[in-house]
């Protein structure tokens, strides 16, 4: 009986060993990537290249998602508000939900789908073809050369992309408000503008900044752990996207709790 109990306990420890080692590896990677932000050499060319790939490359999808989020919010909220005779406050509701919640989360989810998976597949391919080892052999720290520029580029680009998504979403809401709900332009924008406080703006900017860490680091982490050829790269890509998506929601809950 006692032996059986110990046996179960050992089995549980064995089961937890791998996730614990992975978590330790992730935090070590995070620490080294952050340390490299202030440590030479700095690869400015790589940062700019990644800002273009991660940021500018995501612009179209972010604009589309932001626009339709604003349109849908305006349509949904107008119906709910009409039962209280408050359709005129549609701009306020759209602004608050977009700036505080939908803009940061939807933009981050798009970035996770596009970039966490992209980073994981790129680094994963490099890993399985020994390019990461070659980089080390040629005197470069792969974390400094590959991870830190991607982290910096994502942190720089995600907040402005979120702001763009917010504005495009508000614009989408305005189109519905004016063409479908019969609100005046001034009424929509006045209520939207007045609804937003500094804390809302802070929440809307801090969230994407934190989400950027999750997207870049998860993508790099799974990419650098890839093994076993093309199948391993595919697995790393899927895992990176799933983990980044889940982490965005977990972080969103934690950050929202801080601001509410």
């Amino acid at each position: 009986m006692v032996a059986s109990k110990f046996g179960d306990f050992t089995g549980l420890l064995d089961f937890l060993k791998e996730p614990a080692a992975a978590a330790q590896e992730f935090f070590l990677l995070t620490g080294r990537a952050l340390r490299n932000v202030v440590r030479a050499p700095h690869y400015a060319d790589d940062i700019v290249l990644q800002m273009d790939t991660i940021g500018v490359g995501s612009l179209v999808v972010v604009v589309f998602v932001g626009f339709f989020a604003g349109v849908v919010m305006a349509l949904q909220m107008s119906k709910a508000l009409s039962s209280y005779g408050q359709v005129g406050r549609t701009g306020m509701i759209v602004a608050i939900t977009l700036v505080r919640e939908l803009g940061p989360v939807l933009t981050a989810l798009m970035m996770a789908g596009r970039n966490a998976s992209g980073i994981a597949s790129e680094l994963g391919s490099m890993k399985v073809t020994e390019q990461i080892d070659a980089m080390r052999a040629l005197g470069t720290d792969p974390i400094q050369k590959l991870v830190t520029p991607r982290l910096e580029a994502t942190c720089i680009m995600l907040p402005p992309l979120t702001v763009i998504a917010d504005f495009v979403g508000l614009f989408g809401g305005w189109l519905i408000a004016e063409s479908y709900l019969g609100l005046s332009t001034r009424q929509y924008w006045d209520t939207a503008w007045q609804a937003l406080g500094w804390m809302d703006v802070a929440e809307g900017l801090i969230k994407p900044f934190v989400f950027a860490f999750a997207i870049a680091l998860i993508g790099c982490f799974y990419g650098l752990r890839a093994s076993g050829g093309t199948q391993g790269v595919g697995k790393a890509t899927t895992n990176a996207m799933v983990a980044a998506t889940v982490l965005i929601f977990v972080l969103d809950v934690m950050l929202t709790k801080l601001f509410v």
Partner: protein
Amino acid sequence: MSDEPILRFENVTVRFNDVEALSSLSFQAVAGESRVILGAAGSGKTILLKTALGLIKPDSGRVFAFGKEIGALPERDLFQVRSRIGMLFQESALFDSLTIEENVAYVLENQKSISCPPAQIYPRVAETLEFVELGGTQEKFPSELSGGMRRRAAIARAAVTEPPLMLYDSPTAGLDPITAHTIIALLIKERDVKRCTTLVVTYRYQDGNLIANFRYNPKQGNLEPAFNGTGRARTTFMVLREGRLVFEGDQDRLEASTDPYITKFFKQRE
């Protein structure tokens, strides 16, 4: 050449998930020596080279390169040791997003312990590409080259800094016999012209036979037998089996071996 070892393994054991990839391995390579490491797939040949370069840390034992214990050095300090070691990876491992010129220039631009003035980087790259007979491929990407050309470009990248120790991981794997011969001829040329210590991992005995018995004639620009009064090039053969060193010695001793595993390597060609 001095007999000072520039690479030394002392009872090195490397494990992956409780499986020993290298098991209490000890040997030393002296300056100017060629070592041919034979072994079947999974015998630990690649792990040996990666351990020599500090890419893999041994679980026990010590590895010394140029007198420094590389297992004890942090990654940043290893860069200086690695700047004196050139490595050809099994699948070339060229950076596929960079051109051939950028690949070869990479180490000169990024390795801080190598002081190469910026104005000299690209002339030096062109010279090295000419050395491996790849002049005119500077602007091409690795995917645009054949397997043999990629292997030569990878040799150029490893050799551009003229390191005193060159490591070759299965340089002829997956190549046709003619291209394989070209690659080994290039390896011998690199060894004899630059006078570097050479470790070659391979499963093909023919590669080791060429390395041991031929040398590069710079006047004629081709290989010639190394028997004309000066004796063979100083070549030691090692045979690995499941991570263990089962043979170490010269070619004559290797061919005299009656061990069934060892004889399989050289009897294949008969």
